């Protein structure tokens, strides 16, 4: 019975050994090769002293080795910690220290960064795959080939720690989201079921390993016996090349942040490519501007489009399948709560709101994280303990997202019998301006819906004793006038919510994951 993430690969390898598990450029790994190589890596890690529960770092760009690394570390009974090479070295050193990482997996693509990183290696004792000269031990990646390929005998339980994803966090230190084999596997099962993932599917994995959307390409795909295409770092920078890749590989399922698809539209090359193999296009991590989505849908006639919502702490919790091009006026709903999941919508006093009212979303599900790494206080704050009439304690995760149900709202464009959730902003992005409470998210979505606006971000600016003022950045390929935009917005928003200043830029600052980088926006413009 499959109860560990590692069983996903081993089970498919037993049934269809020659099926392709991962492809990257002209390299590929069959399920049998992945099972064998990850066993070898696990045996090497065990021989090097890795014990159940240890953390092993993965310091790699997008590449085929990431797949072997993930499953090799898991098979050794350890947890993998993806470390983003694009992050400043000091942050990575902090994470090495914070997670007591003794072994680091890397390859020669990091040869420029590695020497810097190793100037302060903290607890590191061994680097596998790195060429840098340092006083600690190092082994070439090829060292795994000399190891036995039998499955290591380690007792691993389904609720053992499997991986830690560090979110960049809007403030302060990065927080480490701990997931178990159980929560990862629960996500794989639910997503394979919801999207009907089959062995014939070819899944485009856009995001880097340190981003939680990877669970679809690295776990769900393995459960279905499908093939995951690891999109190279180079392809992520060139939308035209990315479109070529989607066409060449005949990808059937795509999953990324909306930005990637917006860039494909802006490249003007959408129409030149045959994207008819795509049957499902999933987007999440940020709101997709309905304007852009309509254009995309026109070019991908065979695809179902889906909004995916769920903080990394719970993987995913809602879905919204879009049957018809949405109205550009209304933001796309978060959607329906998926299986094995229930929600609460609570007010500031932790009491349920009445139907249709806005409150914080809390989620209870099998896909929930174990907690935050070495941060019991934050974990406790983020968990809401609910006990119904003396029964067992039920733990809900506080998302910090404000939502409401569509019940009682005139949401004409939702032709659904069931209620869906609507996103109403972040709890911490609610500001007071000129004495009024304003949801910045709402202002942003109205601004995004204005004609000619390709992308937009709004942010609060300190304005002396008056408090905060709303400013906006807009990306457009037309010559727009701020007064005209403000007039358009005034049809939907009260005067105090309209940005006091609108500036035009070529592009918005983005995090490595492709989301709008709110922090650098703030520091850039403060």
């Amino acid at each position, binding site marked *: 019975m499959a109860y560990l993430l590692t069983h996903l690969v081993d089970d498919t390898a037993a049934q269809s050994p020659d099926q392709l598990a991962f492809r990257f450029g002209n390299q590929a790994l069959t399920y049998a090769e992945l099972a064998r190589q990850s066993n070898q890596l696990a045996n090497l890690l065990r021989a090097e002293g890795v014990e159940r529960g240890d953390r092993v770092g993965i310091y790699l*760009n997008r590449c085929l080795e990431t797949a072997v690394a993930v499953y090799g570390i898991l098979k050794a009974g350890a947890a993998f910690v993806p470390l983003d*090479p*694009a992050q400043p070295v000091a942050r990575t050193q902090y994470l090495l220290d914070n997670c007591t990482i003794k072994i680091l997996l890397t390859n020669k*693509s*990091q*040869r*420029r960064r590695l020497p810097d990183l190793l100037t302060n290696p903290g607890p590191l004792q061994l680097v596998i795959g790195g060429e840098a000269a340092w006083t600690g031990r190092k082994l070439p990646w090829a060292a795994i080939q000399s190891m036995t390929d039998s499955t290591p005998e380690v007792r691993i339980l389904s609720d053992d720690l499997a991986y830690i994803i560090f979110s960049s966090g809007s403030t302060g230190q990065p927080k480490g989201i701990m997931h178990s084999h159980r929560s990862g596997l629960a996500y794989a099962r639910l997503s394979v079921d919801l999207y009907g993932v089959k062995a014939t599917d070819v899944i485009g994995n856009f995001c880097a390993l340190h981003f939680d959307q990877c669970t679809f390409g690295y776990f769900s795909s393995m459960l279905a016996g499908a093939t995951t295409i690891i999109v*190279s*770092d*180079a*392809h*992520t*920078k*060139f*939308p*035209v*090349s990315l479109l*070529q890749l989607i066409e060449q590989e005949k990808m059937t399922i795509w999953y990324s942040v909306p930005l990637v698809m917006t860039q494909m539209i*802006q*490249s*003007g*090359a959408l129409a030149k490519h045959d994207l008819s193999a795509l049957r499902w296009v999933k987007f999440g991590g940020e709101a997709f501007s309905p304007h852009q989505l309509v254009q995309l849908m026109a070019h991908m006639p065979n695809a179902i489009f889906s909004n995916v919502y769920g903080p990394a702490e719970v993987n995913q919790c809602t879905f919204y399948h879009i049957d018809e091009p949405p109205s550009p006026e209304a933001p796309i709903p978060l959607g329906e709560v998926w299986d094995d999941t229930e929600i609460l919508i609570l007010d500031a006093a932790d009491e349920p709101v009445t139907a249709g009212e806005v409150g914080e979303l809390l989620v209870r599900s099998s896909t929930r994280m174990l907690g935050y790494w070495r941060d019991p206080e934050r974990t406790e704050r983020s968990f809401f303990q609910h006990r119904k009439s003396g029964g067992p304690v039920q733990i809900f995760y506080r998302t910090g997202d404000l939502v409401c149900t569509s019940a009682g709202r005139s949401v004409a464009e939702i032709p659904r019998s069931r209620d869906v959730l609507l996103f109403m902003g972040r709890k911490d992005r609610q500001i007071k301006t000129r004495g009024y409470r304003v949801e910045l998210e709402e202002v942003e979505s109205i601004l995004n819906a204005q004609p000619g606006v390709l992308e937009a971000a709004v942010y609060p600016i300190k304005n002396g004793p008056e408090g905060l003022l709303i400013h906006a950045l807009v990306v457009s390929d037309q010559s727009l006038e701020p007064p005209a935009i403000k007039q358009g917005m005034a049809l939907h928003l009260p005067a105090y919510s309209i940005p006091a200043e609108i500036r035009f830029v*070529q*592009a918005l*600052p*983005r995090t490595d994951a492709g989301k709008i980088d709110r922090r650098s926006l703030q520091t850039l413009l403060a």
Partner: protein
Amino acid sequence: MKIEISTMEDRIIDFIRLEILGEGPSFELDADEDLLGSGLIGSMDIFRLIEFIEREFSIKVNPADMTIEHFATVTALTQFIQQQQAV
């Protein structure tokens, strides 16, 4: 006026080294080094690089030409610029 290949390469390398990576002359950057796969150059840097070559070599880079093939290495970029100048 036509610019020699080596000087064109050198000017691009200088720009990447100084303006994008913030490194001094001691930082070795080979014309054939993969700029993209190792993450040496980020997404936002591409726009700065394009601005630079458009200004420096009086060409226009169309969105359709923004591909891996043209930007993978300094050598590839140099060839692309020369093609554009010849048009």
